[in-house]
């Protein structure tokens, strides 16, 4: 075990008993970040002293302070730790520390069959588990060359758009709460609650659904489920209109969001921002259009894009996205065809429960699929991405010709968005970090893998 670090003049007691080097390095990074800029400023001033130090001697309100926000903080939406250096109320530098929820699922995947890994994807972006299931299934299906029946594709589309609505509902509620309106959280959670009920009806689980299967989906939508979905999308536009009525002309909401956390188009591309955050800065990059998967090339919808790049633009954009999701679901329900919901090749998908319980072959196939599962060709590697609620969610899989993946690489949108957030926070007020974190919408389960 490493030794206790020395902080001259400070007796920190037992505070740094574990991982002492880790904290030291973070503070070191905080000091060194943009150090060239400070040196430049100091040189321009004529003396070697950085200007802030002199200021702090004169004015106690302008002194520098290092503040740790998180990892346990309600505003950080999970276990995100922001170490910021403040000059008065302005954030001068920020360093994010993530990994508090690191479970190593990329490592765990290497000893699971492709189907066994499904529940782990539920726990990545836990606000929209269905999207992750679909992303994983599509990635495996691409790797193994499995064709999915048409009805399953429509079901997947409906459910992943519902997951998008559900995720955006939570983002909006929490965003309102971050800006000071607590009641809004309850209203959006009512809608989420209805989506939970739909998920319950469809998959049998409310939260971590694991409903999609490699080669199709677990079971067909029941008439009641379709009725519930129709019911939900019928009244949901009114709910959005209600929220818009509440927020669009709300002075507190506008002033808290406008011009806050601004990121230009060029910066957004450079920092690799993805999803609604990228489109909020004016880049029309959406995987549903860029490389259409499922049936997205057959339905009519628009990709909302905003130019402003601030929190307000991202708010408008996500509301528009929810409306588009409703449109997609309507079309899917109308165009959904009857037919099988899972591939009937025993090497590609599980047999149906009827087969498993009432035929010998079905039982053997079920057993073998659990034991061995899908076997992609040796040396195959492929990348498949979907547009999750947070952005491009991709899996890059490498196969060694067995039923277990050789390497699973998860391209998590929250991870890439957080990297940009580190820069977005610099120069903003410390009170705005709460709003910025809310509008970037990171989920630590995904960012930390």
């Amino acid at each position: 075990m490493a030794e206790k670090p020395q902080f001259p003049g400070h007796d920190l007691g037992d505070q740094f008993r574990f991982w002492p080097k880790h904290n030291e390095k973070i503070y070191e990074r905080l000091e060194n970040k943009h150090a060239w800029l400070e040196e430049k400023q100091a040189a321009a001033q004529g003396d070697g002293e950085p200007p802030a130090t002199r200021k702090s001697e004169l004015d106690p309100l302008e002194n520098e302070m290092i503040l740790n926000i998180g990892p346990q903080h309600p505003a950080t939406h999970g276990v995100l730790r922001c170490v910021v250096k403040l000059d008065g109320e302005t954030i001068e530098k920020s360093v994010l520390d993530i990994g508090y929820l690191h479970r190593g699922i990329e490592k765990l995947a290497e000893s699971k069959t492709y189907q066994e890994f499904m529940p782990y994807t539920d726990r990545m972006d836990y606000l929209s588990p269905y999207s992750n299931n679909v992303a994983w299934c599509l990635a495996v299906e691409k790797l193994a060359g499995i064709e999915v029946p048409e009805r399953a594709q429509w079901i997947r589309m409906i459910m992943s758009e519902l997951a998008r609505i559900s995720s955006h509902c939570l983002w909006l509620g929490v965003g309102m709460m971050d800006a000071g309106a607590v009641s809004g959280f309850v209203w959006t959670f009512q809608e989420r609650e209805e989506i939970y009920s739909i998920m319950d009806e469809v998959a049998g689980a409310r939260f971590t659904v694991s409903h999609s299967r490699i080669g199709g989906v677990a079971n067909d939508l029941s008439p009641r489920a379709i009725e519930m979905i129709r019911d939900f999308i019928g009244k949901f536009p009114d709910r959005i209109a209600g929220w818009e009525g509440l927020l669009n002309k709300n002075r507190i909401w506008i002033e808290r969001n406008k011009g806050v956390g601004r990121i230009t188009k060029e910066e957004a591309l450079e920092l690799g921002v993805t999803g609604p955050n990228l489109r909020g800065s004016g880049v029309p990059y959406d995987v549903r259009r860029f490389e259409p998967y499922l049936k997205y090339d057959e339905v009519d919808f628009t990709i909302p894009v905003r130019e402003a790049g601030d929190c307000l633009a991202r708010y408008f954009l996500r509301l528009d996205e929810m409306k588009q999701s409703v449109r997609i679901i309507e079309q899917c329900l109308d165009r959904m065809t009857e037919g099988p919901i899972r591939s009937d090749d025993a090497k590609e998908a599980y047999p149906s429960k009827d087969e498993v319980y009432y035929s010998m072959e079905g039982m053997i196939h079920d057993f073998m699929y659990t034991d061995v599962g899908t076997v992609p060709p040796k040396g195959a590697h492929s990348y498949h991405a979907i547009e999750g609620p947070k952005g491009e969610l991709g899996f890059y899989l490498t196969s060694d010709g067995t039923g277990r993946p050789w390497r699973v690489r998860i391209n998590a949108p929250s991870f890439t968005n957080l990297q940009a957030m580190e820069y977005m926070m610099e120069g903003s007020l410390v009170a705005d970090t709460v709003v910025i974190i809310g509008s970037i919408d990171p989920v630590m389960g995904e960012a930390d893998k």
Partner: protein
Amino acid sequence: MSKPDDPRASNPQDPEKLRFHFTPSADSDSRRDDRATDNPHAKDTTRVPEVIEALQDEFGAAVLELERYANEDTVYVEKRRIREICRFLRAEEDFDYFADLGGIDRFTEEDRYEVFYNLVSTERQKRIRLKVRVDETDMTVPSVTDVYRAANWNEREAYDMFGFEFVDHPDPRRMYMPEDFEYHPLRKEFPQLGVPGSLPLPPQTPDGELTMDPFAAAHGSKPVKSYDEPSTDPDSE
């Protein structure tokens, strides 16, 4: 030919292939060709023949190998020229968006590791994958952070998980694991339950010692309890 009646008659050097439904068959070359392009999920965006041509014209022998699977082009390039190649792709071929970077442990004698780069051109609607091979004896990889700023965290993560040394990286810290950790967990030799004692965790009792092994039971010792278990006396019922 083997006779099921007399197992000794079969030649042990040439065992009969089990005609079992799930035995993965060896790929014949013709099927491999099909797989290069035929895939129900194949996309047009991942085919970039003109970019590969431009790369070959510009860098010649630095483009080592081309591979195609499921209609996805992979370009293997020389490790020490990856930064120039990225700069060229960004400046000349409009690959303006950096989507992903990561490592792969192939667990081979030579060129054990791979680093892949997933680049996107939002203008041309194309996606390309570059790969470099890294030998175990020389874990340095030129960092592409001054071409794509977005590579920063991804490179940190690859360093954390595999131990690559990204040359000229502005912030060479670990991404997920604490700095005090000494191993690189996604390497194939790293045990799934972790190395006991490598990662001290907070004490499990208020005045206890640091937890050195969170999976004590799996490693054969008794885990510390944060509470006193009530004595289970069968007679007390």
